């Protein structure tokens, strides 16, 4: 099943003003309704290697699997939604690849990456994330952060040690509590959300949300939403104008129309001929 003409996708990635390397990695396939963003960490170029492995494994494997598997169906064996199962399996696969490379090659020791993936199907989106890369949604004029960071700060906010306002002043911004490729097993947080035509989704690395306030991100999505490419460039530019201390990556996805899954036999036949 293809979603061509359903989603508009634009992206932009930049090393920022301070770093010489870009350790972020992004990939997307609008026709399959798949977007992936990863923010790597590790010495020398290990961060790039980790984030690159994560996006490549996940996008190429899922592209093939989505040819055969139907994401909205429930898997007979596991009782899980196929989308969840596919994401679980491919994230585990990416984790193993990165972990093994880090174990076997000294220059990659300790490398890892954050991850945020969104898979669109049947007027829905399944989001999987690990670490502090985020997904936001603009619906109407309301910007909402959909994912919740796996970070020390988020845990401190949750346990009431500090307020979200204080968190912006914290010195402990860069500590994530989950990452891909660090341990033999990782658990991604996976949730489903309903989408509506007109929604704009933003996937970003912490290089954006640490440098640009949610208010300014919301303003950019609202005013430049009609030109996604420009909007993506503007967000990166804003982060750089504010100092650009980290790599900055953004992927924007706009839902152009409804895309219910064809459930009847006739509908399925039609979708084959599309």
């Amino acid at each position: 099943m293809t979603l061509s003409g359903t989603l508009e996708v634009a992206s932009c990635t930049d090393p920022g003003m301070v770093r010489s390397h870009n350790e972020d990695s992004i990939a997307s396939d609008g026709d399959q309704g798949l977007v992936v963003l990863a923010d790597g960490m590790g010495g020398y170029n290990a961060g790039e290697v980790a984030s690159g492995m994560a996006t490549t494994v996940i996008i190429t494997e899922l592209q093939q699997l989505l040819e055969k598997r139907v994401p909205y169906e429930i898997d007979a064996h596991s009782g899980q939604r196929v989308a969840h199962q596919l994401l679980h399996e491919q994230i585990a696969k990416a984790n193993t690849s990165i972990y093994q490379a880090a174990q076997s090659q000294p220059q990659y020791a300790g490398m890892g990456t954050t991850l945020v993936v969104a898979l669109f199907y049947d007027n829905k989106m399944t989001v999987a994330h690990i670490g502090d890369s985020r997904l936001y949604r603009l619906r109407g004029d309301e910007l909402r952060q959909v994912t919740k960071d796996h970070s020390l700060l988020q845990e401190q906010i949750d346990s009431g040690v500090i307020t979200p306002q204080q968190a912006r002043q914290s010195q402990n911004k860069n500590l994530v509590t989950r990452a891909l490729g660090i341990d033999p097993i990782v658990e991604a947080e996976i949730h489903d959300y309903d989408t509506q035509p007109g929604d704009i989704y933003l996937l970003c690395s912490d290089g954006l949300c640490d440098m640009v306030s949610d208010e300014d991100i919301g303003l950019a999505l609202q005013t430049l939403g009609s030109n996604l490419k420009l909007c993506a460039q503007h967000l990166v530019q804003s982060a750089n104008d504010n100092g650009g201390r980290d790599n900055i990556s953004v992927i924007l996805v706009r839902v152009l129309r409804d895309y219910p899954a064809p459930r009847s036999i006739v509908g399925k036949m039609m979708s084959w001929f599309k």
Partner: protein
Amino acid sequence: MAKLILSMDGLILKEIALTKERTTIGRKPHNDIQIDNLAVSGEHAVIVTILQDSFLEDLGSTNGTVVNGQPIKKHFLQNSDIVELGKYKLKYVNEAAAGQAKAADFEKTMVLRPGSMRPGPAPAPAAAAPVVAAAAAGAKNFGDTLAAQSATPAPVAPSKAAAAPHKNAAVQLLSGANAGKELDLTKPLTTLGKPGVQVAVITRRPQGFFITHVEGASFPVVNGKTLDAQAHSLNDHDVIELAGVKMEFFLKT
């Protein structure tokens, strides 16, 4: 590493490095920072340090704890905060926050793992590790051991003041139904034109003001010249034509 400078009447008495998870302050001798003064309670206050962040908490002292002139119960210490206990002053100095430029290399994202400690060059994270594990204990995702690797992160809060150009600017309409009307360009982004027909945006950046085409078949015209898809820097008294309306950009003093 953060430290406290203890002083009285402007005289520096000593410096205390915040290496421990809990640094206690009080009159009794078992405190980490003992202040032998009757205005100070036996157990007066405690500073909890989690990696690079320190939190001051009053332990129900008789005379209270004051930070920068305000009585507090619990306070997230910021560089240069002055804590007052009776006649004594404690200045909080966090070099990581003060020397942000130097710390840029250290602020890379790292994984925080409770338990197994990797020995770091700085003693601070080592001392703080148990707190981290405690802070993280609530989360299910911590199966096994992790290390709080040493680092000196230096966050920068997005600062609008720094990003905004010094001058203000506005656009005045020269033709059309609203001729004469002025539009102040105070927001980082201001859109002009008719949605669905032609829209351009003026971005306010540290370098100045820029106009960029957003949507529509025709591009904006500045001083009689049609723009391309690139951002165009605006100068004082530039005349913009957009969706059949002329307007003038000007800087305000």
